[in-house]
């Protein structure tokens, strides 16, 4: 009697460790490991934004839509520019600017304004991306050179990543019904070109390059400026670096 029981117990425990089967056959998508440090000798792309250079001209938003077939409607963005207005009473308003909008700016005679500036934003291409962690089908992933991409063939449009991204950098593309976001213009940078927004920005408020290259404009940008990233406390390790960022900006 005892014999049979122990046999069954052993047999069932093998059966129940179903993970072993999944593990052996590798049917479940495995997660990309978060990368702590850029591996040497490998391109590791980063992006720089000089907040004090941006004039809010929206050329970047325009070029991004042209280059990446982002729908024209003002609420679909891979990159966007926010306008911060801090008043003397401490209240800060943030509004995404609309390209070609006719709205009149507050004039300098509005003495209640303490300071005001533009902040360009885009996907931070986090080194430890929240969006990759949550994607249930492994459609969002990180390339070897540190760019987070969406595989539109396998994305099921569940919007989990859109919820998970702490920077609001993703949207659901209304035509493909898949998650879409900034790719650093992956098709351009793999051909040695700059991302479209960096190409057209008239004031060089946007910088792009390989973080592993010691002599790139990107490395210089990091060397010459006091650098901040957005929401550093979340440990997503953003690779979009901001120079001259105001404490108000999140």
């Amino acid at each position, binding site marked *: 009697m005892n*014999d*049979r029981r122990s046999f*069954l117990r052993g047999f069932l425990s093998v*059966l129940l460790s179903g993970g072993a089967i999944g593990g052996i*056959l*590798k*049917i479940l*998508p*495995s997660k990309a490991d978060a990368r702590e440090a850029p591996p040497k000798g490998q391109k590791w792309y980063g992006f720089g934004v000089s907040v*004090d*250079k*941006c*004039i*809010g*001209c*929206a*050329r970047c938003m325009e*070029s991004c839509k*042209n*280059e990446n077939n982002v729908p024209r409607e003002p609420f679909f963005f891979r990159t966007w520019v926010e*306008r*911060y*207005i801090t008043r003397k009473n401490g209240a800060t308003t943030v509004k995404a600017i609309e390209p*070609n909008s006719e709205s009149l*700016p*507050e*004039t*300098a005679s*509005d003495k209640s*304004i303490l300071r*005001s*500036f*533009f902040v360009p934003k885009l996907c931070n291409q986090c080194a430890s991306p929240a969006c990759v962690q949550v994607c249930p089908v*492994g459609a969002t*992933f990180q*390339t070897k050179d540190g760019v987070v*991409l*969406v*595989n*539109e*063939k*396998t994305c099921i449009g569940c919007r989990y990543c859109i919820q998970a991204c702490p920077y609001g950098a993703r949207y659901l593309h209304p035509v493909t019904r898949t998650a879409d976001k900034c*790719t650093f213009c*992956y*098709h*351009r940078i*793999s*051909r040695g*070109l*700059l991302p*479209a927004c960096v*190409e*057209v*920005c*008239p*004031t*060089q408020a946007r910088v792009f390059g390989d973080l592993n290259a010691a002599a790139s404009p990107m490395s210089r940008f990091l060397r010459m400026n006091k650098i901040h990233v957005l929401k550093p406390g979340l440990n997503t390790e953003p690779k979009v670096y901001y120079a001259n960022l105001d404490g108000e900006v999140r």
Partner: protein
Amino acid sequence: MGKFFEKFPDPLARLIVVFLALFAVGVIVVVVLIPKPMKAVEMQWADAVKREQGRPIKYAGFHACAECHDKLYEMKKKGYHRDLSCETCHGPAKAHTEDPDKTKPVTPVERTFCPQCHAYNPSRPRGFPQINPVAHNPLKPCASCHNPHDPKPPTTPKECSACHGEIARMKAVSHHVQLECTTCHEAPQQHKVSPRAIKPTKPQTREFCGKCHAKDAKDKLAKNAPKIDLAEHGEKYVCWQCHYPHSPEVEQ
């Protein structure tokens, strides 16, 4: 050993057989039937990277423009617009580089284009050149005064603005911005030495303003200037007795 098999329950043996059969089917389905790319995420990702890299380009980059438009490129390199990419203003031009005759990049001429960067906006960084598009030389496209490939800050003849700064500033934002002071005033050299004794001339006839503003005026520069009938409009006065010519207030 034999004792073990004797004790082995029959139903369990059958259960094992069934389970093994199911397991075998599962292995066959996973290993043979499901195509490999569907199983390996790494392969799916490699595919996605390839797809992403293969996507078409719209912006050619300014190096591409310099290949053919080297003169403009050289001119731009020296001016305030040196850091601008050609496609910042002319739009995506990859198609143009592939077939220069078939597709032409845009040339923005509307007055609304340049103010996208240069209209006054308190959020813009201090020192960035900004104007008030309503007051700043209305009506004219920006390029009629500023060469967009080598723009310069506006200048008034130094000789005049040194003393007549207020007039110069006024004129700079008026419809008459493009007129030299000497278009209307003859300033003898002596005026600079004894400004009060020797005065510049003022237009003495209605026909002088009529060169641009008469109904049948031929002057090309004044194509869009407001036109009046000299015979009927305010006969006995010289124009500047009613209109301030440095900032003509006439509405169109």
